């Protein structure tokens, strides 16, 4: 598992790789806040993510709400991989991902 923040002039991309679970929750929160506070557009990439647990999903949900309130543009870089979409759908998060991506 790894979390990467790629900063460019206009956009901050947070890339989630491998299995993102409770171990990386604190670090993910830190990165998301950092990305939001920069005021740039924020993109979240799930392309290389193999699995997300509840802690990751709720952080993404919270950052989406925060971005909306702060008027920062936030979106997924592209649709989540099928495995993740299915797992999230099984857990009742289907609409959440579709609507944000």
């Amino acid at each position, binding site marked *: 598992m790894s979390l990467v923040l790629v900063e460019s002039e206009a956009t901050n991309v947070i890339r989630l790789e491998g299995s993102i679970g409770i171990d990386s929750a604190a670090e993910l929160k830190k990165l998301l806040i950092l990305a939001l506070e920069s005021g740039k557009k924020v993109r979240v990439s799930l392309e290389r993510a193999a699995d997300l647990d*509840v802690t990751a999903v709720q952080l993404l949900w919270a950052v989406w709400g925060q971005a909306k309130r702060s008027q920062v543009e936030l979106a997924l870089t592209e649709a989540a991989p099928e495995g993740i979409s299915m797992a999230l759908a099984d857990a009742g998060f289907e609409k959440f991902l579709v609507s944000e991506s």
Partner: protein
Amino acid sequence: MDQVDRFKQSFREEAREILVELESALLELNENRDDLELVGRVFRAMHTLKGSGAMFGFDRLAAFTHHLETAFDEVRNGRLLITSQLIDLALAALDQIKAMLEEDSGSVVADSSVCAEILARVRELTGATEKHKVEREQDEAPLAEAKGAVSEWRIRFAPGPELMQNGADPLLLLRELKQLGEMRITASMAAMPPLVELEPERCYVSWEMVLSTAGGQDAIRDVFIFVEDCCELTIEPVSSMMPCATTCTVEGTATPLEEQRAISGGRRTSDKADNASSLRVPAAKLDQYVDLVGELVTVQARVSEIAMRRDDVEITAVAEEIERLTSALRENSMTIRMTPIRGTFEKFRRLVHDLARDLGKDVELTIEGADTELDKTVIDRLSDPLMHLIRNSMDHGIEPADVRAACEKVATASIRLSARYAGGSVLIAVSDDGGGIDAEAVRRRAIEKGLVSADQQLTEKEIFGLILEPGFSTAKLVTDLSGRGVGMDVVRQSVEALRGTIDVASKPGQGTSVTLRLPLTLAIIDGLLVSVGDAYFVLPLTNTLECIELTREDIAKANGKHVVEMRGEILPYIRLRDYFNIHSERPEIEQIMVVETEEGRYGFVVDQVLGDHQTVIKNLGRLYRHVPFVSGATILGNGTVALILDPHRLVRDVLRAGTQVGRGSSVTGIGSRQPKDGWPAQAKISSAQEKMPALVNND
């Protein structure tokens, strides 16, 4: 260690406990094959292992255990009988599960071929019931259909704050729930705080589900069985008009479901109690805690010493308060380390079961006093000596079936493992009803070995004590003495390392009993500080009964014997001044500490009794570790060192010395006793107190 590893480690620790419980339940079940409560215990343990194993990523273990659980489910439902074969299979499977548990560490690996063979044999056993099961299901199908067994349930699941921190993953639970039937699910983010306030490792999501399943409420509840204490869970039938699976009236299914509910309920109750009242702490942290308390006790003694010298009321008051708190802290730390000996005892059921099978003997193990508590360090080091003793009993003490029959003994031999408190010690005994020890044969062998002379008179107790001597056991002896010598010197060394003693009692044809007397703790004891000349000693307070004076007049009355009259009874005493060869002037009135020892009541004569003392036991250095009558040393508040005496061994040593100079002589011979080679030079203790710290091993 990352969090996942910590969860896995936590599961391993719990699983080890479950395996001990499972092994014990299986062995009991072997003896009481109709006991449904025991079947329930076995099933419950397997169910927990499987469920928790899967949750923490021990997939192989979970899958393997699943097959065993299925077999015992068949037993619960009366479709499979308990046989020796099933018990042996389950025990063999347990060994493999133990190995699977440790596979991550790389030290142990479960044997795949053995696992496959076990599973094949389990399937063979349960396969015999398959046909019956299919027929039964066919019979019940129309009835189930008529009753409309598929029901719709509304489930609300809200994980508590600690659920994820305990290693559970709600998404895995939801996935498992989905396997029960068709499910519609909605996640609610209503409780989600703003990002900055969000605790990243806490679950804020809750779920509402509608599930159509034939599984019933118990099956749904089972999914959440391991997290029910840290979540809100409601399960309601969507329509009360629809038939409810859990209350279906099909006889034969209602009973197992009721039982399952009872099991789940029982487990929930127990989990709640555990969560509320206990906390798992690594043993190393506990050891460190006790070490620190030990250091604090030593420092507190220094503070008290300084306060006394300064004669300052305020400092004295503070010093007394520190002393009170330190004492309470010490008692508390000792209590924390106390553990019931049950776990150690229970594991010998398996040893007895396996050895009985291998030796073709019918042996029953009885356990008594398993709730007796001992310091964890003592318990950890007790396993090997007890194993030696039980092996000896099984292998050589218990006679073969034909010999027992010829002696008109009951066919089932008995081994009794017991523990009980005795003052500041715990007595642990291994007794059997085997052939006993031939005292005369032991004596002959001891003479052959040169351990005693041919004309030496020995009591029976002393003769049995000889089997504990190193090198006493030989192949020949094994035959002559029912093998009582095997490993006994090893047992003695282990027990003595724990500051314990061994007592052997035996009656030919009736059996043997080996009793270990062990201290409750190895860290800090309540002692009585005494002085002789410049030297300080500590006597354990638990053995000390009272203190009386010894005047010149009393000594004159005894006509040179080391005895004194105490309330009409004669009390033999040992003068520490003589024993340790301390050269200083004897006071007009000496003090006798009356101590209860294994050899009876004895007095220890000292110059002064300085009072009770919280004694932090320090091991003696390597050179002095094997001095028999000293169980350690302690550092006093003024920095000097006091030897902690072992009254039992000291008396025994004196008695033995008396025996050596001629049986029948009383303890009066010790006054002129000279130091033995290899003992600490007693003169140094009194004349060079400042050198004493060199005796102490601070490790």
